[in-house]
């Protein structure tokens, strides 16, 4: 392969990986702190995409849609935690799986009832409506670069919050020992609702900024769900750092799988997961389960 194009492929892989990280980060956060397996995570991604579509249509600009839509998504996450999820913290993982599966069905059907089943496009912000020339045939849209930067910004912010703030300390403590946080006098109830809402918000944000790239259509969330779980598991459940590394690995594996083994590209990502788990059964950065 021509070195220029090999380099571009690596960039493609990283860009896809960064977006995967953004989607998966909320999942691993909720996983780590709340010990909740949230199958409906992909649905929050879908909610974000549809919010972006609906609000961009109303306001004309994706920026505004994000500013208006994010609080809505956070509120939805908060409400779902209060009404359903909080009853499950003490229960079996499997019941969480079942409940959040039910939630997928409900959110999908509500989407179909409210927005219909057509495929919709969301225009990229006008300021970013240009592209960079890479080779004589290939360019790179500025919006894709902007998405990658946004993903990096979120990663940096999450790192900052979790490593260097009081809230982050509590979150870290919570992911190790929930009871301890309770004993230390923190309101675990509020913390849980907050973390779950934040996870939902991150997924929705990912859906919003990805909307101009991916278009908006029914079943959108289900497509990202499995690959999200792959990222979280390879990285080690609950580890933000792990999710970041794993997302980049999955992005690269997917990109190069498609280049070198086009007939069986989809196997590449799963093979990566199997290999990782056989080597480290608790994921790259997971604590011993």
């Amino acid at each position, binding site marked *: 392969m021509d070195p220029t194009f090999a380099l571009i492929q690596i960039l493609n892989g990283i860009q896809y990986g960064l977006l995967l990280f953004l989607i998966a980060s909320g999942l691993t956060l909720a996983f780590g702190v709340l010990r909740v*397996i949230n199958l409906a995570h992909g649905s929050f991604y879908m909610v974000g995409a549809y919010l972006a579509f609906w609000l961009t249509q109303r306001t004309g600009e994706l920026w505004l849609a994000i500013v208006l839509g994010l609080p809505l998504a956070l509120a939805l996450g908060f409400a779902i935690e209060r009404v*359903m999820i909080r*009853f*499950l913290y003490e*229960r*079996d*993982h*499997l*019941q969480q*799986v*079942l*409940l959040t*599966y*039910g*939630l*997928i*069905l*409900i959110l*999908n*059907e*509500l989407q*179909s*009832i409210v927005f219909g089943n057509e495929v919709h496009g969301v225009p990229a912000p006008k300021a970013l409506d240009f592209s960079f020339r890479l080779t004589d045939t290939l360019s790179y849209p500025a919006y894709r670069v902007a998405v990658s930067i946004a993903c990096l910004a979120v990663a940096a912010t999450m790192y900052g919050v979790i490593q260097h703030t009081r809230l982050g300390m509590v979150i870290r403590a919570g992911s190790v020992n929930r009871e301890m946080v309770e004993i230390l006098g923190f309101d675990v109830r509020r913390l849980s609702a907050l973390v779950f809402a934040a996870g939902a918000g991150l997924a929705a944000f990912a859906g919003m900024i990805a909307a101009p790239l991916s278009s908006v259509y029914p079943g959108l969330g289900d497509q990202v769900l*499995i690959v999200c*779980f*792959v990222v979280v*598991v390879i990285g080690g*459940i609950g580890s933000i750092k792990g999710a970041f590394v794993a997302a980049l690995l999955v992005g690269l594996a997917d990109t190069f799988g498609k280049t070198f083994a086009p*007939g*069986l590209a*989809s*196997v590449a990502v*799963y*093979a990566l*997961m*199997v290999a990782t*788990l*056989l080597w480290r*059964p*608790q*994921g790259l950065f*997971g604590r011993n*389960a």
Partner: protein
Amino acid sequence: MAAPPRMLSVLALLGLAALLLVPAFADRFYVQLFTKVMTMAIFAMSLGLLVSGVGLVSLGHGAFFALAAYIVALVSPATEGASLWLALPLAIGGAALAALAIGALAIRTSGVYFIMITLAFGQMLFYLFHDTKIAGGADGLFIAARPVVAVGGIALLQLDHRPSLFYATLVAMAATYLFLGIVSRAPFGKAIEGIRVNEQRMRALGYDTYLHKLVAFGLSGALAGFSGFIYATQYTYVNPALFSWHQSGLALMMVILGGLRSRLGPLVGAFALVLIEELVQAWTTHWLLLIGVFVISVVLTLPNGLVDLLPRLLPRDRRRGVAVDA
């Protein structure tokens, strides 16, 4: 896996009696429908052995179901049915071998990681059958005729005849249920139950827990293959979608919905889910919304699954009796 309390057994027997009468009184469609329900019940029970027996949650169990179904398709000649004596052992054996191979690797992980590694194996098989031409690709394969059950050229059973297939499936389901009962009471069953409760302790007691888990995984794969064989026989059409995680998820949903504490759970879950889907689909095109509401209500109100509902249906004084029995 707890044996069902006596009252549940009575209800189960009543259900069995009602099933026996289906071909005699119900429309041909219901004969087919209940054949499918019972097939799914066997599939769910096979997963139940893993989930509530060993505490291993697999999200790739559809792979063994699908593999067996594909084996039936692949060994069937172009114009006639394969011999049951060939197709059935090959289907079950193939599924069991695949389960042993996948299990040998997967069992090294635990918890959520185990769920995900089984999912990964399932997805890899899905793409193998979907993306390559080894067995019909994405369009799937037709089976020209159902397997033939004959000894020395004399047909013992016509699987083409729907009531016959129905009763054969009923026998298969009952046999699977009883077989799992025997397993759970055998030393092996006690051992895997011990592993579920406290693996470290079992290891300290000298049990080879890895081997026990592997055998359970293989056994469970073989039973899933059994149900896959019946599926292929009933519908004579296989498609890669049988490998997909949706199929595995469906079985898992049946197991959890029915209830993890009772051996009847997967059975109850399979019947409830398929029949409720059948019912609400007739009402509205947004039927999945109702399924979602149903699933969530069960989780929130019946922590031990639908099995808990059965004793509640009985008169009060009888319920007290159940408590004593249990």
